[in-house]
């Protein structure tokens, strides 16, 4: 369920915002993410931002995956603490 796509916030005007995904733009509601700012990436579901994407976490995940070797990286990737 829950098709949600990451999009870049281009402008915010009250509860409305413009989001851009791969060159496609749409006005959405940020009523559920009122603290969102221009430049943030959000998850877009049925015309609403339902959450802000943590870019640090995203980069960290990708970094861990590329370093996937026996030992340390696995601990971080597959345990609930997620701390290296």
């Amino acid at each position, binding site marked *: *369920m829950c*098709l949600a*796509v990451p999009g870049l916030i281009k402008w915010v005007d009250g509860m409305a915002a413009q989001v851009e*995904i*791969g*060159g*496609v*733009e*749409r006005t959405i509601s940020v009523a559920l993410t009122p603290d969102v700012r221009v430049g943030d990436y959000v998850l877009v579901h*049925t015309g609403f931002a339902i959450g802000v994407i943590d870019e640090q976490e995203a980069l960290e995940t990708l970094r861990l995956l590329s370093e996937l070797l026996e030992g340390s990286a696995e601990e971080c990737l597959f345990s609930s603490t997620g701390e290296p």
Partner: protein
Amino acid sequence: MDETILLAHGSGGQMSHGLIEGLFLKYLGNPILAALDDAAVVDPPGASGGGRLAFTTDSYVISPIFFPGGDIGKLAVCGTVNDLAMSGATPIYLSAGFILEEGLPLAELERVVASMAETARAAGVSIVAGDTKVVEHGKADRLFINTAGIGRVPAGLELGNDRVRPGDLILLSGTVGDHGMTIMSQREGLRFSSPLQSDCAPLNGLVTAMLAALLAADDAGWGALHCMRDPTRGGVATVLNEIAARSGVGIEVEEAAIPVREAVRAACELLGLDPLYVANEGKLLAFVSPEGAEPLLAAMRAHADGREAAIIGRVTAEHAGRVALRTVLGARRVLSMLAGEQLPRIC
């Protein structure tokens, strides 16, 4: 001229004549059409060279009638020109029948007809026969157009859905999903803004270049080309399934090889659609034996309508009737025919 279409415009009297002469002939005019005989009596060029006649018809009911990259008129000309071109025919003559809704603004009809004239000119075809009917308000969605067309298939060229063979390579002339997603972006309730444009275009020029390249190639000739299809409604996936069934072969395509514009991908992700099932109006698939693939691909890429052409898959003797897709991850899965139209989803 009047402001809107009235029932009287379809009744055959003075107002009908006024419309024909003041609008249709003004844009589509050529000696054959201008004669306004009951039928166009023609002598298609190239009869002495042998070959066969190709004949096709299609109706166009698209809504909205104007969209980025085209309109219903351009579509009506391209669609029929392309069906002829896919059979290997040089398109020559088209007919155009209009069913107009009472109340249609004349300015809109004029825009559509002007577009048809321009498209026909670009494709090198003449519209030599026509008809106009008007129905009551509410009985037609603004206007419907039917076009029929004839063209000549040169001797020595034999193409067909059932002629595709194991070992053939599958070439796609460019990006997929542009037309369908452009239309989708105009629909109530789904609107989004994008740089997307319909890819609506006549393909006969591209096909002429392709056929010439095969003829000029050392090891290939027209015999290397087995089938051409334009993936309109139902998209690339539907055509591949049709070919697999009609020719009794298996097909394998590479997801990574299929060109898709980023904006199309994005729009599809947003609405939960698969670009492989989305309509195209200016692309073709060619099924060719291996020796013809290189010259064909080069000719396509050298042409304005085939710059992003690519080999997207191959035909196999295995899993006859089924189409398999190798995903970007390298796994294989079935690419089946859809039951009906793809619908946007949220889940």
